[in-house]
């Protein structure tokens, strides 16, 4: 890569959109914990609160993630395959389509005309621009998926029989996953929500809408998570000073993640009346299967760290822990990420547990859980990847490594302080998605101290987020003579891989397997709506 300036600009543009969305949403998050606590009565306003929650959700879950995954994905494809982005004009087209979608959706969101949360909730209806904007954003991400899969195909044609770099294999798997995952929400928006919001249809079947959304709702989480796992496998071992434990097992983990993330969405519908228990149980079993690749990944990360620690002079059973380079942002992020994954994964098992879900469904436990596992485990790895990529993207050294380490620790501490009381509130029965507590019941008195803790946690997180943006901006804008000449380094496996069976080196077979599993797990549950003819629900404002 002698001259990759155009590729670097493409990646940087995506990443900046992602992180601008992120910092705006962080300010909203802190406002929300404050408003929700009710400590400052002047702030009380459900109108502002629900507009803010809807925007916070869309910015974090759709904008931050999509743009981060696209931007980092382009850079990983270019550097791991050592070939230019296929059709750069098209890539920029995808970028601007997604930006346009974001802006079009932002107008109704910020003016309080789309306070339907990012999960939509028909038959409540938002302004049509919200749904159209969201569709364009997703369409922009499809351009990225197509380019990733085409680049993989191109490379394989040029290198027959060779092993696809692990980083690209994971990225292509993620593109395949997202194409499948986003189809559900796309069907809901195109055939149900847009026609209803424009007045072309009079009623909607919310049961079908919820089923289609559940199709997307689990795999979307893995779409966000796969870049974090990719960094665990392809960046961490090298940064820690060691080797990747096993290249083949990493591929298997990505395959099981992508394949089994898709046919299991009904764990979001456990408490719903429009699907039968048998289907819910089937999806519930699949949900447990998808815990396996995470357990395998945990093993691989710890094994890679142990190898690195021992190579650096670690002695005895735990000596390697002290010998790890804790001042390396990638290493520190992975350790903190894994700690949050352990607790978040534990909570996830509770949510997944079928009938037990009744105790925590739609309580504060749930946002506590997904903040820990997404904003914690996943987003801290987005930071790590950004800190790693930024000097290479702007060709200047990172402004301050010490500030970056402080920022990562603060994020971990803030997330722990925010999410622990959030989980407890859920067990104490507090519903999620309330803008304040007005229940005339003694139970609510026990909620107050936890809400106070959440404000503190949010404040630490906001400070950490600001440090992150400051460090990236300074790195790019700070005048310096120093030129950063480092190049991206992909970890080597302990045992080199000479050749692989095609199913560990390509996505074609897995695409077919996904098609079969999706037909089994969603075929009848979707078709049933055309037989049972539930009376439609009229649209409502909010």
């Amino acid at each position, binding site marked *: 890569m002698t001259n990759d300036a155009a590729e670097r600009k493409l990646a940087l543009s995506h990443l900046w959109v992602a992180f601008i969305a992120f910092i705006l949403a962080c300010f909203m998050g802190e406002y929300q914990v404050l408003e929700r606590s009710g400590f400052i009565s002047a702030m009380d306003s*459900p109108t502002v609160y*629900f507009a803010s929650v809807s925007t916070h959700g869309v910015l974090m879950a759709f904008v931050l993630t999509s743009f981060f995954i696209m931007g980092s994905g382009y850079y990983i494809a270019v550097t791991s395959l050592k070939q230019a982005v296929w059709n750069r004009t098209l890539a920029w087209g995808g970028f601007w389509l997604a930006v346009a979608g974001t802006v079009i959706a932002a107008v109704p969101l910020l003016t309080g005309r789309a306070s339907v949360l990012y999960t939509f*909730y*028909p*038959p*409540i209806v938002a302004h049509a621009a919200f749904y159209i904007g969201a569709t364009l954003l997703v369409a922009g991400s499809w351009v990225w998926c197509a380019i990733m899969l085409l680049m993989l195909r191109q490379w394989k044609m040029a290198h027959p029989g060779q092993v696809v770099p692990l980083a690209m294999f994971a990225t292509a798997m993620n593109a395949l996953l997202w194409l499948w995952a986003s189809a559900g929400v796309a069907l809901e928006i195109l055939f149900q929500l847009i026609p209803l919001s424009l007045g072309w249809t009079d009623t909607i*079947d*919310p*049961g079908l809408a*919820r089923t289609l959304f559940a199709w997307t709702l689990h795999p979307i989480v893995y779409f966000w998570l796969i870049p974090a796992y990719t960094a665990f496998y392809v960046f961490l071992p090298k940064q820690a000073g060691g080797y990747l434990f*096993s290249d*083949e*097992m990493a591929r298997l983990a990505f395959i099981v993640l992508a394949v089994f993330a898709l046919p299991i969405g009904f764990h979001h*519908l456990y*408490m*719903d*009346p429009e*699907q*039968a*228990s*048998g289907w*819910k*149980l089937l999806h*519930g*079993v699949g949900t*447990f299967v998808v815990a*396996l690749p995470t*357990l*395998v990944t945990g*093993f691989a990360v710890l*094994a890679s760290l142990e190898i690195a620690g021992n190579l650096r002079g670690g002695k005895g059973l735990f000596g390697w822990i002290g010998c790890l380079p804790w001042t390396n942002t990638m290493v520190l992020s992975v350790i903190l990420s894994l700690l949050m994954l352990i607790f978040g994964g534990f909570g996830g098992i509770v949510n997944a*547990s*079928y*009938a037990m879900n*009744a*105790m925590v*469904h*739609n309580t504060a436990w749930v946002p506590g859980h997904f903040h820990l596992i997404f904003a914690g485990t996943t987003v801290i790895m987005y930071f790590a990847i950004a800190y790693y990529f930024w000097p290479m993207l702007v060709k200047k050294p990172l402004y301050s490594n010490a500030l970056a380490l402080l920022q990562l620790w603060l994020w971990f501490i803030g997330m722990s302080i925010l999410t622990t009381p959030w989980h407890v509130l859920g067990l*104490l*029965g507090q*519903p999620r*998605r*309330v*803008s304040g*507590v*007005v*229940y005339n*019941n003694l*139970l609510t008195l026990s909620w107050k101290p936890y809400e106070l803790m959440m404000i503190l946690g949010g404040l630490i997180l906001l400070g950490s987020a600001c440090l992150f943006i400051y460090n990236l901006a300074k790195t790019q804008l700070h005048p310096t003579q120093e030129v950063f000449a480092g190049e991206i380094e992909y970890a080597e496996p302990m*045992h080199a891989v000479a050749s692989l*069976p095609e*199913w560990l080196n390509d996505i074609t077979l897995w695409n077919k397997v996904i098609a079969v599993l999706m037909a089994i797990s969603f075929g009848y549950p979707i078709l*049933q709506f055309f037989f049972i*003819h*539930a*009376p439609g*629900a*009229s649209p*409502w404002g*909010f």
Partner: protein
Amino acid sequence: MQLEPLKQKCMQHLREFYAQWRAIPIDKLEQKWITISLIVIGLFVGIITVDALFHSVNPPGKIETVDSASLHLNEEFAEENLGVQVDAKGDITIRMVAGRYSFFPKHITVPAETRLTFRWVSMDVLHGVHIPMTNMSTMIVPGYVAEITTTFPKPGEYPMLCNEYCGLGHNHMWSNISVLAREDWVAPARLPVEGAANDK
């Protein structure tokens, strides 16, 4: 139909796949870890499946439709039929309507340690209901009847909270339920069911 060649082809593919699978080098320690993981996952799945199939521990899942827009014309959910009812066999059914922003009737009284069947419907948008500290939890989706059977082990005063965003007044959507000791509870008279009697 020529099934035989197809079957042979499938078998050959499977054999090939198995041979390739066996050729993947997996570290001894990692094999042990995967085995342990599979056992733990199998245990969880096993407990859930046995509970579901043999003890009927299931989330709500009876697909039954209803016209949410015309509940006022619906006999079962007409106003005088809402609330707690005991049938000839002594089974207790509680019919409730959710609408922005309350549950109707506003207050009900039920016995503890008794099997209760709740039937919830929405008259407008999506709602959810949870009685904290219990597993009385279900989504209430317009167009569908949400039926759930449960037993409250402990007497006490509980709130019934709407736990799904249903509009800007969502916070205010809640009602009360009194759970009385079994011996203190008296079946309500057939008519009328009082609304909003204890909500002061």
